């Protein structure tokens, strides 16, 4: 009787633990998307973002802007760290997303480091402000 109770309660516990293996892994992603505001239910999100029908230039630019904004919002702190050093995986990814020419990339990295304090005016600078400030610096540098 005693063993029976012991065994069945332990069995239930084990089953609960085995849930483990991967099902609950949605959790960390949910947690992170809370802060970045972009969970992705592929079928809707990915499809809605582009339409080939209007493949004109304006559309492409809008598309790029949206992509940059999402990336900067989600990776704000990593980008800030990379910019302070003038190097890093996140910074390189941003350069690619912003279509910076291969030849201009080093200059782009240098701008983010040298003008760090005008890109990040305070600790409260937002992702949108970052993009505006960064674009200003790039325009001034003519790349």
């Amino acid at each position, binding site marked *: 009787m005693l063993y029976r109770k012991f*065994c069945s309660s332990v069995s239930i516990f084990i089953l609960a633990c*085995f849930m*483990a293996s*991967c099902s609950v892994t949605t959790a960390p*992603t949910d947690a992170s998307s809370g802060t970045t505001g972009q969970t992705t239910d592929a079928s809707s999100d990915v499809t809605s973002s582009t339409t080939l029908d209007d493949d004109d230039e304006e559309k492409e630019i809008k598309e790029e802007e949206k992509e940059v904004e999402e*990336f900067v919002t989600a990776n704000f702190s990593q980008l800030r760290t990379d910019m302070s050093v003038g190097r890093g*995986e996140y910074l390189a990814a941003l350069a690619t997303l912003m279509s910076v020419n291969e030849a201009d990339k080093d200059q782009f990295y240098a701008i983010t480091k040298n003008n760090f304090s005008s890109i990040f005016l305070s600790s409260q600078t937002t992702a949108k402000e970052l993009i505006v400030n960064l674009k200003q610096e790039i325009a001034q540098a003519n790349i």
Partner: protein
Amino acid sequence: MVLLFKPVVILCLFVVLCSLSTHARSGDRISTRNPILSQLILKTRAEKIWLRPTWQALLHVPPHSLGSQASSLVDAPSFFLSSQGKESPQAELEATLAKLFAPSVGSKLDAEEAVACRFPARRAWLEEVLEIDKGVLPEYRCSNLNNWLHNFDADGLTLIFPVSVLNSPASMFGHTFLRLDRKAEKKPDLVAWTVNFAAYADAGRGLGFAINGVFGGYPGRFTLAPYYERVKAYSDIENRDIWEYALNYSPAEVHFMLLHLWELLPAYFDYFFIDENCSYQLLGLLEAARPNLQLTKNFYWDATPADTVRAIASVPDLVAEVHYRPSLRQNINTRAEALALAEQKIAKSLALGQLTLQDESFLSKAPDSQVEIIELATSYLAYLSASQGKPQDVFDIALEAESRGKQHDEQLSRQHQLLTARSEIAIALPPLAITPPAYRPDEGHGSRRLALRYGREDAENYLQLDFRWVYHDLYDPDNGFVEGAQLAFLQPSFRYYSKDNNWQFEGVDFIDISSAPVRNYFIRPFSWKASAALKRYRFEDDERPLIGDLAVAAGLSYALNQQVSAAVFIDTKLTVSDKFDNTVGLGLGASGEIMYTISDTWKGGVYSSAMQYVEGLTQTTYQVGGRLRFSLDTDNAVLVEVSEHKEFSDAFVKGQLSWQLYF
């Protein structure tokens, strides 16, 4: 014994009933007025096309349905065009062909519901295998599908494996998902899309979630997310190292896999976690594009993510390249190791706001050191803010929301000051070089273990046979596993005593978890242990009854140097048996262990523990001993143990020599 298996039997019955209750309706009538269609159907019947591995993979029919009718793992009725599709690949093939030939509804060329747009992989494969000429089948534009594909532009595949962390039960076994690379465009990995299979639950966890999950109560679905989201979740927040296995898939194979993924997105699978988990479904997806891989055939009813990675790595030429992406925690540890303790202290004080950049102790450092100190401080601050609000350890005390908000603002402004200071120093240090572990996860031992032990206990010789379902304990070969993490499930053991010429049930470890990550100056995790078992304890008169045993411990672990680690624990134990007053015994105690990783193949350790029973019976017990393990190869190890025990009778000595086989 019988009682133990009862829940398992009930579970099995339940599963069988679930799978039987699938819809079986009357057969479909396939219109064969179209002469080309009738011809094609005759051809498929003559060649039994539906038995081809690709078709079976596209329908997710498991390859190991022995003799019995093979039934698809997909549970959404909309995935099947024939009402018998789930059970009959042939009916589904014929229905698909018939619907592909059906004239489009109305004159709309863009009918998204058309079978050609809804099941593009099936169409592409049938066209190829039945040699259907272009133009024979009605053409559709399928703009939703094409936009979707255009968004990926994928031409490469990478299998991603974030290693396990024990502090969250959700990630004990690690996880696997796929990344869709854009090699031709040289797009950064971070912005690539990932394909993930997970339970689709709206909200709530806890027991209800667990039970629904076990019995397939939540549907499993494929979902997509940018890789940077995943890196943030695993690497920065959960501090899990990530392994990236680039696979040798051609752009055409990747394209076909995506066509098939499109078919699967609206579909769902009953998420029965043991056999149809994330790893298994990913293998199914990989097989659709390359059916001759036959990856799923080796997994009968369980697949841990590490098993999947091992299966993939064992296929010759499938893995092109393996890349290691260290977690934020590794990053901090590597930076700290490069600095003297005095400099580490400055970095930590800067991060915590106990010191400013104007302080003499910082300014007196050489410029190179200043850069290293600031970079360490900013990484540490990033670690602190990433782990906030999400307790990293079971013992973390949740802060009040208000004080956390204030703390967060202070951290933000310190981080801003530090980074601004960093940007003003022109020095560029060489990039941080974090050495990957010497062994990849696929180079580790198999999950299951069979052990044969010969021992002598209190002047009696015995032979012991035990089996462990999963996964790894602290004295198993460590190569490819996370250090200081033990996870063992379901380990029954049997003993043969030559004296009685008889096999005896020795006990069963239901679960035995030990998480002992080492602490250092920056990262200070707690260690803990939890176990549940039925085991034999020695009482007076050589009596050894089976006793229910639940133990929980909390402690601290330190690395004394690269090879030696030490851990101390406070232990509590609850024992259940009629040997105790009121059938329950309660013990409190302490234990310690020192482990020495001598080389890749040798590992040794000494341990001791003492426990005072305060409830049920008054008794002091202790245990002191040592172990030495030698790995013969990846999947074979020899273990020697010598120990002295004092249980509920006189003290006795035990010696044991074991051979452990992993598979």
